[in-house]
Structure formats: C-alpha cells, structure tokens
C-alpha cells in the first residue's frame, strides 16, 4: 500500500516539476508548482513528517503560491519564447549530467541505511509537539535567526516594491501635469487613512519628497 502511494506521489511530484519547466505560460507554471508541492507533501507524510507536510501545504501551496499568482497577474505573465543563447541546448545536457552523477553517487554509496526502510518508528516522531520542543531547546538560535530573517525580508520587500516618486520618468511627467496632487497621495500614510492633511503650502515645483515630508507636523 505504501509503495503504491509512493509511486503515485513521486510521479505527481516529478510531473509537476516537469510542468513548471516545460509549460509556456507563467500562470500554468505556477499551477504546476502547486501540484508538485501537494505531491511532495504526500511524500513527506509517507516519511512520517506530519508537521513538515502540513506546513508545506499551508505555507507553500497556500500562502507563497497566492503571492506568485498575484505577481503573475500584476505583470501580465504572457508566453515567453525560448532563450537565444547556447544554454537552450546546453542546459538540459548539464541537468542530465547532474542527474546521472547524483544517481551514481546514490548507487555507489557505502551508506547502509538507504536500502532500509528507515529507523524503527517511535510514536510521536514528527508531530508538532516534538518539532516545537526541538525548536525551543536544541535549535533555539536558528529559530530566532529565521524569524529575524523573515522580518528583514518583509521590510526589504516593502522597500523594494514601494511606489517611489521622482524616480520613474512617467511619474515625474504626471506630477508636472497635476501639480496640485498632495505629496502623500499613494503613500502609506494615505493607505492608513490619514487623509485629513491640509494642502502643503509650498509651491508645486518645490514639492518635498514624500519620504522626507514631515507627516505629523502638517495636521
């Protein structure tokens, strides 16, 4: 029974991976990755990693893929033509060589355990309770570092994808044609509902940067 489930999940995972690479439309690539992730979660379950499988489905297939779908919809993911460089033929060859090398390493290993079914199963292996205990005792430092890294990445993504004024040529032209636009339009202060500011008294040519505008002093 577990062998049947393994082959179904493995074929699903490999098919999804091939779909990510081969499908022309970016949107279909994202959907193929969702199939791949769900099949991989089934493989994790077969390896008795319940918590990792649940996190995979919820975090990856749920949250991260929604982010991908949003960005594909935003940039309008159309079809792409194949690359012009020599990598078009060299890339698959290199990947094939890599796969052969990994399989040779797998077949020639002196590790006895990989031909077994794994260690004796202890009840509670891979449950959230055990993983959480490990995270808060043995792996406390990696856990805290990971949370710090997540915070840094979130702030960095906001800074990168934020709307800037004065950098893009189109937005500069727009500012010239609509000089009475308040400086905070499109800023985070407006999104937070702080729209009760007065019009800035400065002439539009000398309009301050939205980052440097003192938000609290204008009310």
């Amino acid at each position, binding site marked *: 029974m577990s062998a049947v489930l393994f082959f179904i999940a493995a074929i699903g995972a490999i098919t999804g*991976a091939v779909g990510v690479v081969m499908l022309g439309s970016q949107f279909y690539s994202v959907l193929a990755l969702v199939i791949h992730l769900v099949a991989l979660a089934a493989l994790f379950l077969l390896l008795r990693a319940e918590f990792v499988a649940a996190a995979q489905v919820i975090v990856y297939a749920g949250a991260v893929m929604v982010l991908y779908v949003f960005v594909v919809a935003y940039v309008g993911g159309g079809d792409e033509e194949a690359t012009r460089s020599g990598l078009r033929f060299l890339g698959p060859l290199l990947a094939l060589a890599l796969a052969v090398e990994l399989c040779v390493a797998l077949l020639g290993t002196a590790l006895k355990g990989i031909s077994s079914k794994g260690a004796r199963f202890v009840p509670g292996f891979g449950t959230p309770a055990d993983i959480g205990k490990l995270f808060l005792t043995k792996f406390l430092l990696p856990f805290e570092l990971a949370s710090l890294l997540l915070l840094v990445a979130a702030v960095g993504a906001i800074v990168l994808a934020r709307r800037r004024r004065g950098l893009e040529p189109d937005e500069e032209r727009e500012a010239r044609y609509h000089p009475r636009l308040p400086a905070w339009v499109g800023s985070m202060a407006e999104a937070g509902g702080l729209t009760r500011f007065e019009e800035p008294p400065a002439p539009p040519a000398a309009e301050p940067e939205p980052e440097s505008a003192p938000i609290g002093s204008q009310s």
Partner: protein
Amino acid sequence: MAIGWYLAVSAVIFSIGAAGVLVRRSPLVVLLCLELMLNAANLALVAFSRMWGSEDGQVFALIVMVIAACEVTVGLGLIVAMYRRRMPLDVDDLRELQG
C-alpha cells in the same frame, strides 16, 4: 519503500529545477525553478531524518522553507520594481551586472 527511492526522486527533481533555471528566461519562472531545487533538498533532508530516526532533518527542512519564503518575497519585490520601471522581464536582457 526504501529510503534510496526517495533520494532518487529528490535527485530527479533537483536536476529538473536546475535545467529550468538554465533554460527559462522569465525571472518569475527562474524563481519557481529555484523553489523546485529547494524542495528537492527538503525531500532529501526529510528522507535522511527518517533514515536516522532523528527529527533534526525535519527542523532543517522547516528552516529551509523559511529561507525559501524570504527569497520569494525579495525576488517578487524585485520583479514588481523592475516592472514599474518598464524594464524587460527577461534574464537574457538584464545583463548589466554581467562582467
């Protein structure tokens, strides 16, 4: 199933992801293929964790998932910024940093 089968699947998925990184041109799909490679590594980690009967590999896999989430947020932020500045979303054209 023996642990070796899981490792073989992991090797195949890793190679497919590497091929995708080399062949595809859209930075979004390149990010997706990076996810494939990270997932293959995750599968190997969980398989080895099962082999040794220790949960350390699963903790490692969860940390890798956190790293992948960070990579996705920063990468997608970069793609959105490039799109706003009307730059071509094509890794063959974005070669300013190539030596």
